[in-house]
């Protein structure tokens, strides 16, 4: 019974923190400098690595799909396959997982260390609401930066696919590009761009929540960090399913 009670309590606290993080945006005081700093850490900081994984994801997609498409004599559709898979699924999800591993864990361990060294308490004692100074800037930065990072991943993925198609599959680049562009519709872009908003929110809020509920010294910080990464991975994948489902339903 205690186990269930505790589970419900945790979910409730997570939602309360999320609601406060959002409502803080509409009512001051706001911490613009902290927000910009977080946007830099999450956005610029993840740029290179996201571009890198995007590039190789696109490349391997082209490599693998060309083999299957060859059986149907449809190698020309490689661009379409790479483009659609990247923009709808792999771009958003892989970027989110990368950022969850990089920044979600960073957020959890930073806030966790602040909890165990009583810096969060000190902040409250000095008259600052930690949800305003720490949570909202991270939430805002992650939800705005993740879509941009996803665009980067998508672009580099298409480029990776293009290079593989051109140099390995001996497809003409214009064929690759036109088949990719023709396949991508407004709906796909909507899907591909709405996911990272949600994923970014999940990553930042899970990181903040796990960090802020840290207890038990430095060992607790390690535990919170692990929990934050595992939980945000799980939630991102589950959310991905439901967002895809909703958008597919909207279409018909």
């Amino acid at each position: 019974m205690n186990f269930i009670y505790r589970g419900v309590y945790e979910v409730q606290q997570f939602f309360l923190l999320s609601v406060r993080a959002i409502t803080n945006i509409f009512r001051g005081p706001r911490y613009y400098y902290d927000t910009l700093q977080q946007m830099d850490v999450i956005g610029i900081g993840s740029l290179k690595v996201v571009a890198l994984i995007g590039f190789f994801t696109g490349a391997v997609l082209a490599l693998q799909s060309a083999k299957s498409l060859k059986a149907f004599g449809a190698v020309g559709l490689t661009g379409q396959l790479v483009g659609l898979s990247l923009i709808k699924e792999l771009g958003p999800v892989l970027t989110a997982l990368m950022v969850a591993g990089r920044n979600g864990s960073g957020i959890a361990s930073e806030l966790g260390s602040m909890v165990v060294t009583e810096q969060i308490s000190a902040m409250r004692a000095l008259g600052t609401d930690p949800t305003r100074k720490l949570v909202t800037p991270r939430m805002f930065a992650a939800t705005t930066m993740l879509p941009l990072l996803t665009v980067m991943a998508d672009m580099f993925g298409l480029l990776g696919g293009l290079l593989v198609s051109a140099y390995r599959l001996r497809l003409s680049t214009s064929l690759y590009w036109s088949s990719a562009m023709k396949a991508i519709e407004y709906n796909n872009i909507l899907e591909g761009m709405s996911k990272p908003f949600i994923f970014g929110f999940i990553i930042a809020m899970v990181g903040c929540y796990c960090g802020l509920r840290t207890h038990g010294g430095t060992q607790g910080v390690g535990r919170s960090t692990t929990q934050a990464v595992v939980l945000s991975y799980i939630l991102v994948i589950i959310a991905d399913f439901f967002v895809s489902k909703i958008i597919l339903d909207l279409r018909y």
Partner: protein
Amino acid sequence: MTPPPPDSAIIKLVNVTKSYWDQVVLRGIDLNVAKAETKVVIGGSGSGKSTIVKLILGLEKPDSGQIFVDGEDITPLKEEKLMQMRKKIGMVFQEGALFDSLTVGENVAYKMREEEIFNEEEVEAVVRRLLGFVGLEPAIDKMPAELSGGMRRRVAIARALVGNPKIMLYDEPTAGLDPITTRTICELVIKLRDLEGVSSVFVTHDLKAAFTLASEFAVVRPGGEVEFLGEDGRLCLINTRFAMVRDGKILFEGTDEKLRNLEDEYIKEFLS
């Protein structure tokens, strides 16, 4: 309903209980701190003494009972009201709890910059004055990680003094420090008590520090120099009293002389 506290008590806890999940920390605490009085709260680890200061500051809510700060019951207050209330209070945390992304000067200036009503010159002047008070003005541009444990505690005291709070709360400010640094911290606390009339709660398990506070006082010599004098048998400091906590209850409250003469087995063992 409990009547409001008499005017002399600046902090008053009435039958306060607190538990975390199934672990009971405080089982009915009554505590009074008079104006300009220092209450030294002693007790073993896990006795719940640190929880007392967190409750007074409103960082945590009690399960039952009332807490009066400066005549106002803070238990029903929401976080925003508590923020206002906390301006009257300075708190020194265990290990200092300095923000490690900010320099020493920025740490001390934090509260003033948050309030956004002071210009940079005013902030700078206050920061220099307070760091001078704790003897650390040269360290203004250092990062907290470069400081020793004792220096961090002193910076924390300086940070807590921003806004001249009437009440100071100390959570084990001397834990893990060498005797000389402990002495420096105690002298700062005595100076605040005797020269500034600050009321305080000093939570500690360091008996040497506790008895230093209870047996010495500060006077200002005509030249402006501060001197520390002992009680020497004729005097008895009444502005510093002890409260001993054990298993979430107050075991004893009174002066250090009374504490030493008690016949309680646990207290004797604790003091020896």
